[in-house]
């Protein structure tokens, strides 16, 4: 494929969003068809790009000096791009149904589509500068989505989100500068692009910068102690929370850290240093912290958000092991967690949409009324907990395997943290399931009479996700094989 198609893939959703804003659709249906068609078209484009990868880079514009905005698809980019392209059309479909009652829909869809483009931009970025560029843009295009309801909480949450993200990016910026100056080139190279001769005896300084940049990008990936924006951002409509704050945005943070660790600083440089100890400790703490907060939380979406915090640090834990196997673990959890979490969020969203209930203690007996949704939720809960046969087990297995093989005592502790977190996950997920299906006492037959499963707009994505959860869980060999190749630089 022509390299320019990468740019087209990034631009198309943005333009589609703008067009949707401008064209006066006579019926909402036409708007839906237009947007869904556009996102599908873009996903098809992305997939054909991934299968027929352009070998050359595509430079859009030159910044200053040798810093350009340019795209190139490598293995990592394929993973993230494929993830976004797979989830977006489905999330779109879900969003049509969910947003039916809301105001300013066109504006919402404009930014929703724009986020798609920007996410692809992050995935396809050839170098750190381009990635940083789209990383910041991602913050900007998602803020309006968080603000969407324009309630007081939404405003406060978006403000917090903005502060945290921009502040984090400021530290990520430091890392970028150092890579520009001390790197052979700012392009991503597996194994790192640091020019060790130029580094000389400034190793400690660079390690410090790495740690700062880790925290900087880690803000989006919600590492402790920079995670409180994520639960708050849950005030956004569920399609946003599900897709962005469980997948695109937060995964962009994790993705950035992977790029930083494996493709910029290089694991050779970092492994065994105090920097590794620091970042790994932080991820381990976050894993446990996120789960314990989730257990305490009674608001469903906030609970899931805390769960996301914990699970993101699973990914980061894999990253901080700093071995190829660690990368495999991180990548598999990146993909699998995306599927599991978007699935559980969509279930939660369906419940909120159909019943208007937001708290766990209001769910008593809803399992009977919405069997499909809660059935799927149960599967995703099991997957998140790590029941074998579902995809969560595979990624945790890969992570733990990498940790065990790394012979790093701290990583062993991390394995312990994974398991503690699994236990806590079981608590906060299964209490929901239990409440829904096994209400305490005699259920009132009159209550919640009119609540039922949502229509196919919502159910179709859910079914596909649950299929993916089971499918990846039972047959993960090809995809894990692919990740292994990426980690060895074969892609």
């Amino acid at each position: 494929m022509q390299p320019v198609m990468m740019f087209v893939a990034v631009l198309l959703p943005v333009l589609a969003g703008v067009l949707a804003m401008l064209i006066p659709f006579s019926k909402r249906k036409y708007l839906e068809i237009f947007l869904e068609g556009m996102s599908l078209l873009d996903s098809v484009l992305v997939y054909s790009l991934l299968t027929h990868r352009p070998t050359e880079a595509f430079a859009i514009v030159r910044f200053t000096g040798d810093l350009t905005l340019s795209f190139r698809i490598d293995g990592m980019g394929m993973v993230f791009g494929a993830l976004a392209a797979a989830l977006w059309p489905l999330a779109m479909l879900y969003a049509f149904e969910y947003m039916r009652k809301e105001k300013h829909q066109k504006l919402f869809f404009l930014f929703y589509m724009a986020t798609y483009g920007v996410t692809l931009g992050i995935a396809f970025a050839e170098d750190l500068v381009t990635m940083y560029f789209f990383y910041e843009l991602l913050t900007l295009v998602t803020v309006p989505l968080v603000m969407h309801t324009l309630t007081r909480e939404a405003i406060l949450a978006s403000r917090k989100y903005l502060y945290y993200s921009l502040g984090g990016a400021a530290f990520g910026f430091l890392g970028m500068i150092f890579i520009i100056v001390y790197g052979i080139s700012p392009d991503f190279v597996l194994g790192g692009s640091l020019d060790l001769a130029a580094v000389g005896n400034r190793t400690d300084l660079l390690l410090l910068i790495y740690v700062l940049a880790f925290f900087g990008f880690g803000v989006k990936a919600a590492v402790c102690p920079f995670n409180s924006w994520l639960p708050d951002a849950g005030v956004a409509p569920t399609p946003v929370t599900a897709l962005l704050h469980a997948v695109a945005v937060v995964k962009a943070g994790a993705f950035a850290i992977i790029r930083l660790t494996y493709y910029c600083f290089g694991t050779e440089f970092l492994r065994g240093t105090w920097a590794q100890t620091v970042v790994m400790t932080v991820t381990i703490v976050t894993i446990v912290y996120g789960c314990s907060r989730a257990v305490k939380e009674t608001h469903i979406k906030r609970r899931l958000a805390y769960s996301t915090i914990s699970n993101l640090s699973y990914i980061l834990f894999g990253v901080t092991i700093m071995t190829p196997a660690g990368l495999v673990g991180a990548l598999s959890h990146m993909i699998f967690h995306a599927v599991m979490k978007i699935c559980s969020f969509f279930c939660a969203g369906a419940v909120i949409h159909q019943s208007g209930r937001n708290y766990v203690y209001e769910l008593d007996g809803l399992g009977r009324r919405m069997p499909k949704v809660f059935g799927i939720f149960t599967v995703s809960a099991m997957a998140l907990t790590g029941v074998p046969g579902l995809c969560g087990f595979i990624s945790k297995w890969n992570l733990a395997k990498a940790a065990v093989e790394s012979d790093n005592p701290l990583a062993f502790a991390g394995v312990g943290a994974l398991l503690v977190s699994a236990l806590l996950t079981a608590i906060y997920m299964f209490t929901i399931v239990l409440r829904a299906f096994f209400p305490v006492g005699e259920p009132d037959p009159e209550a919640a009479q009119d609540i039922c499963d949502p229509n196919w707009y919502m159910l179709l994505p859910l079914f596909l996700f649950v299929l993916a959860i089971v499918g990846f869980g039972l047959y993960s060999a090809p995809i894990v094989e692919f990740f292994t190749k990426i980690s060895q630089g074969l892609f």
Partner: protein
Amino acid sequence: MNESVILMFPIVLPVLFGGAILCVPRIRSRSALLCAAGAGLILTALSVLAVLLGNADTYTLFYLTKSLPVYFRLDGIGRLFAAVMALVWLLGGVYSFSYMKHEKEEKRYFGFYLIVYGIILALAFSGNIITFYLFYELMTLFSVPLVLHKGTREAVMAGLKYLLYSLCGAYLVLFGIYFLFRFSNTLSFTWGGVLNQELIGGREPFLLFTAFLMILGFGVKAGMFPLHSWLATAHPEAPGPASAVLSGIIVKCGVLGVIRTVYYLFGAEFLRGSWVQTVWIALTLFTVFMGSMLAYREKLLKKRLAYSTVSQISYILFGLSVLDGTAMTGALLHVICHAFVKCALFLCAGAIICKTGRTRVDELKGIGKEMPVMMWCFTLCSLALIGIPPTGGFVSKWYLAVGALKSAVPVFSWLGPVVLLVSALLTAGYLLPIVSDAFFPGAEYESGSFEKKEADPYMLLPIVILTALAVAMGVLSAQIVPFLQTAAG
């Protein structure tokens, strides 16, 4: 496709039937439900029989990842457990037909009952630890609905407690598996262990710690101190037949896990004489004693039986922990014996609740007049549990004691049998008063005031069969023991 695919039938059949019962809205009437459940139970039991008689060997279902096959293998231990499980579960099911008439949500109960049936059989057939772990987790998840069936606040909390304790144990196991995978060639169960000395390279202390965690983890399900307290909470809340199989079978899955871990993954040689063995023995003996004491003090019948289970399972674990062939034979015997006995006892307790609504021990005065057949079974089973010859309990405890004395473990080789003996006395202390009060209620009870409340045949039959088996065990032990001895290496 080879003939070993027959291994799949006992696993898939009940799951299919259970799933159908849960999902097909057509099954509405009680008779249809019972037909489906009955068919599922019987077909499964038959297929287990076919497997045991056939010469199935190994079967790989599929690969989770390249190095993790879901793999089934039939060996001696597997046959033993499968046989016991299939039989007891079937009888428990039959009993449920009548018992569950008094409970709501029968459909849900039978659905999950059947699904768990398939899962435990899969546990018995599992050929590697990953497969075992897979079904172990599933067993936990799918048996939770059985525990919290009543739907009261206490029941739900008990279900939750059961879930969390079990998962906690499972994750301790998983932690071990992660590390085991690092230090071994394979995760398939192999008698004598799978450790690779080259890979270990001087990291034995760490590996021992791992082994300890795994034993502790499986010990949760088997009610070993310190994570035993779920048993006493979950059993009284579960419906009668559910607590019977819970106590009779599901805790045995923990035992199976320990056997697989110790003898088939790490290897007895690796653990012999290490601190792990010492601590493990100490824990089992403490649990034996503590369980009996707690049971002795307990006034609630089902809870007393639950504590008794805690104690009795640790007999088995003790037998395993001395790492001696004879003791292991005893342990396996006790697995069978306890499964029959405790299941029967719980079924009795269930029948009492079902017919009279009495739950406390001191309310049972004169119950022997009201439900004589059942109470006779109760009496026989009590004797078997205490270990009065010629019941099964006597034989198993005999082997346990001999094995312990034979083994070269310092201190415990004689302390163990002593504790077992003390515990047997306590067992007598907490079971026999029930029996004597039941038949000899004392002067203040007018014998005329008792009315016949004998349980109906569906309930009585399983109890009688189980009791008969428990007693027959002792008589037929000569036939069983050689088989067990080969299984125990």
